[in-house]
C-alpha cells in the first residue's frame, strides 16, 4: 500500500496511455467552483488521506474534459460521505432516531408541565421533580438542541387547534424557540468542551447559568408581542419566566381589567377581574414549562457518562497520581479476585462432592480385598458411570460448540433481535394509542380557558391527538423510543457478556504483580484497563469500578 506521498520509482501505468491528455483548462467560474468543491470534500476525509485525495482529485479534475463532467465529478465528491463517514442511509436512520427522541422529550416535557400546572400550589415542586427526572434521563441520551427546538415549535404550534391561548402564534412561538435554540446550543457546546477537559464543576455552572439565562431570554422573546398588546411594561421582562412557573395571582402588574372582559388575539371572553400580567404569565407558562424541562434534558446530555469518563481516564493517564483516584479498576479487580475465589471454592466443593459421592469405592476395595466379586461390581459400576459421564460431557460440549458457533449466534441474534424489536414496538405502539387520547385535557373554549389562565392551571397542547394522525404520530414516537431503549439495553447486556472473559484475565494479570497499589507502572496499567473498559462500552461497569477504586484507595490511604 502506497501512501503519504509520491513513491520514487513509480512508473506511468499502462492504463495511463488511454487517459485524456491535454492542456489544463484554467480559469473560469466552473473550474473555480469545481476546485472549491473538491478541496472542501477532501477536508472531510481522514487526516492521513485528505491531502492525497485533494491532489488526486485536482489532477483528475484537470483532465476531466467538459464543464459538465467537471461539475459532476466535484459535486458527487462534495455531497458523498467520506471513507469513514456514515452513509446517507445511516445518517437518515440516525436523524429519524434523534427526531423521535426530540419528539419524545417534548411530549414528556409537555405532559409534566401540564401535570405541574394542575398541581396548583405544588406546581414548583412538581416542576423541580420533573426537571431532575428529565436531567437524569438526558445523561443517557445525546439529543440535538435544534431538533428539540423544532419539536417544541411544532408542539406549541399544533397544540393550540382550539385557540384557547391568546398569544400562541408564529410571532410568539417563533422568537421564543429561536432564542432558546441559540442559547441552549451555545450553553451545551461550552459545557461539553469543559467536560471534555475534565472541568466538571465549571461545566455544571455554565450549564445551569446558561440554561437559566436562555430560559429568561426565550420567555421574554416569546412574550414580547403579548406584552406590547397588553400594555405590560418591558422592564418587568426579567420576572416573566420565574413568575410563569408559579401559581396564578402571585404577583400582578400591568393594566387592570375590572369588568373581566377579554378580547386579546384569539381569546374573547368575560368573567372575573384580572390584570394584564395574569394573561401574559399564563400564556408564557405554556412555553416556559416545556422549555425548562427540555433545557434540563439537552444540557444534561453534555454530561453523559460516555462523555465524562474518557476525559477522566485521559486525565488519569496524563497524571499517574490522579489515576489512582480517578480511574481505578481496583473494584473490578476485587470482583475478579472474588470470581477467582468463588471458582476455587466451587472446585473445592466439587472435589468434596466427588469424594462424598464415591466414598465407598476405594475404601471398600482396600478394606475387603477378599470380596473380589464386590470389587468387580464396584469397578464395573464406576466404569459405566465414567463412560456415561464422558458421553454426556462429549454431547454437551458438541451442543455448546454448536450454540457458540459464529453462524448460529448470528442467526439466533438476528431472529431473536427482530422478534424482540417487533414485540417491543407493537406493545409500545399499542400503549401509545391507548394513552394518547387521554393527553388532551385543554379547555375546549375560551370561556373555560380564562379562569384557568388566571390561576395559571391551564393544560395546554395535545390538541392534535384529537385527530387519528396525531394519535398515530404519538404511537410511532413511543414505539421508536421503546425499541431504541430495548436495543440499547440489549447491547449493554451483550457487551457485558462478551467483555467478561478478557477483562477478568487482564485483571488477573494486574493482580499477579507485587505491590499492586503502589507504583506508577501499575497505575498506568490501571488507566489503560479503565480506558479499555470505557472504550468497550461497559460504562456502567466502569463507573462501578471507579467508585469501588476510590473506596479501595481511601482504605489504602488510611492504612
Amino acid at each position, binding site marked *: 500500500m502506497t501512501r503519504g506521498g509520491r513513491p520514487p520509482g513509480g512508473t506511468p501505468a499502462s492504463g495511463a496511455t*488511454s487517459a485524456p491528455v491535454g*492542456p489544463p483548462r484554467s480559469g473560469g467560474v466552473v473550474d473555480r467552483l469545481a476546485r472549491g468543491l473538491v478541496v472542501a470534500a477532501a477536508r472531510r476525509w481522514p487526516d492521513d488521506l485528505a491531502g*492525497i485525495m485533494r491532489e488526486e482529485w485536482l489532477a483528475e479534475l484537470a483532465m476531466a474534459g467538459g464543464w459538465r463532467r467537471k461539475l459532476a465529478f466535484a459535486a458527487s465528491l462534495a455531497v458523498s460521505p467520506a471513507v469513514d463517514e456514515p452513509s446517507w442511509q445511516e445518517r437518515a436512520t440516525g436523524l429519524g432516531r434523534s427526531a423521535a427522541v426530540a419528539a419524545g422529550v417534548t411530549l414528556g416535557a409537555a405532559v409534566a408541565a401540564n401535570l405541574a400546572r394542575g398541581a396548583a400550589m405544588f406546581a414548583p415542586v412538581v416542576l423541580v421533580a420533573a426537571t431532575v427526572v428529565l436531567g437524569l434521563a438526558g445523561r443517557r441520551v445525546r439529543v440535538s438542541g435544534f431538533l428539540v427546538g423544532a419539536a417544541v415549535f411544532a408542539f406549541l404550534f399544533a397544540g393550540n387547534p382550539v385557540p384557547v391561548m391568546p398569544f400562541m402564534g408564529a410571532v410568539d412561538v417563533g422568537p421564543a424557540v429561536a432564542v432558546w435554540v441559540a442559547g441552549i446550543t451555545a450553553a451545551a457546546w461550552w459545557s461539553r468542551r469543559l467536560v471534555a477537559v475534565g472541568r466538571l464543576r465549571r461545566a455544571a455552572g455554565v450549564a445551569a447559568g446558561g440554561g437559566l439565562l436562555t430560559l429568561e431570554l426565550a420567555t421574554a422573546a416569546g412574550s414580547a408581542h403579548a406584552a406590547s398588546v397588553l400594555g405590560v411594561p418591558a422592564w418587568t421582562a426579567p420576572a416573566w419566566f420565574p413568575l410563569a412557573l408559579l401559581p396564578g395571582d402571585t404577583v400582578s402588574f400591568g393594566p387592570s381589567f375590572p369588568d373581566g372582559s377579554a378580547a386579546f388575539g384569539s381569546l374573547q371572553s368575560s368573567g372575573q377581574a384580572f390584570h394584564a400580567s395574569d394573561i401574559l404569565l399564563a400564556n408564557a407558562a405554556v412555553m416556559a414549562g416545556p422549555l425548562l424541562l427540555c433545557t434540563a434534558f439537552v444540557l444534561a446530555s453534555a454530561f453523559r457518562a460516555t462523555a465524562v469518563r474518557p476525559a477522566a481516564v485521559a486525565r488519569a493517564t496524563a497524571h499517574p497520581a490522579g489515576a489512582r483516584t480517578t480511574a481505578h479498576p481496583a473494584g473490578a479487580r476485587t470482583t475478579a479476585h472474588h470470581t477467582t475465589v468463588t471458582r476455587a471454592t466451587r472446585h473445592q466443593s466439587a472435589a468434596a462432592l466427588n469424594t462424598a459421592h464415591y466414598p465407598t469405592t476405594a475404601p471398600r476395595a482396600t478394606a475387603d480385598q477378599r470380596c473380589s466379586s464386590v470389587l468387580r461390581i464396584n469397578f464395573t459400576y464406576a466404569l459405566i458411570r465414567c463412560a456415561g459421564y464422558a458421553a454426556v460431557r462429549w454431547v454437551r460440549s458438541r451442543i455448546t460448540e454448536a450454540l457458540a458457533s459464529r453462524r448460529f449466534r448470528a442467526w439466533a441474534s438476528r431472529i431473536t433481535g427482530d422478534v424482540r424489536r417487533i414485540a417491543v414496538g407493537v406493545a409500545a405502539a399499542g400503549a401509545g394509542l391507548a394513552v394518547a387520547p387521554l393527553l388532551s385535557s385543554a379547555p375546549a373554549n375560551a370561556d373555560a380557558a380564562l379562569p384557568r389562565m388566571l390561576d395559571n392551571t391551564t393544560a395546554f397542547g395535545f390538541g392534535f391527538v384529537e385527530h387519528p394522525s396525531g394519535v398515530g404520530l404519538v404511537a410511532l414516537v413511543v414505539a421508536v423510543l421503546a425499541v431504541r431503549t430495548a436495543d440499547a439495553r440489549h447491547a449493554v447486556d451483550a457487551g457485558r457478556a462478551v467483555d467478561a472473559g478478557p477483562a477478568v484475565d487482564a485483571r488477573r494479570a494486574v493482580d499477579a504483580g507485587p505491590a499492586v497499589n503502589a507504583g506508577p507502572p501499575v497505575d498506568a496499567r490501571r488507566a489503560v484497563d479503565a480506558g479499555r473498559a470505557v472504550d468497550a462500552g461497559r460504562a456502567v461497569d466502569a463507573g462501578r469500578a471507579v467508585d469501588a477504586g476510590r473506596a479501595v484507595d481511601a482504605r489504602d490511604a488510611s492504612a
Partner: protein
Amino acid sequence: MGGPRITASVLRVLAGLLAEPGAQRYGLELMQESGLPSGTLYPILARLERAGWVESRWEQIDPVAEGRPSRRYYQLTADGVVAARREVALMQQQMSRAAGPAARPQEA
C-alpha cells in the same frame, strides 16, 4: 487485516480492476468502467487499499513539462486479485442460483 464489506458497487469496481489485473488505472477510468460516480468510487478505493486488495502509486511525470498534475494510479495486489476473483465468483454463483435452471443455457 479484515476484508472490505462487499456490496454491488464494490463488485463493480473489482470487476473493472479484474478486467486487466496487471493494469494500473486512474480514477476517471475506473469511473467509466464501473459506472460509479466519483463520490462512490473513491471511498471504495480507499477501503480496498486499506484492506490491502489495491495499491496506489503516483504517476512519475514532470507536471511543468507535461502541463498537468500527476495522477494517482490504482492496481490490484496479488492478494487482491485472489480475493476479488473469489468474491466475483461467489456473486456469480449466487446469481446463477437465484436465476434458476431456466436461465441456464439449454444443452442440445
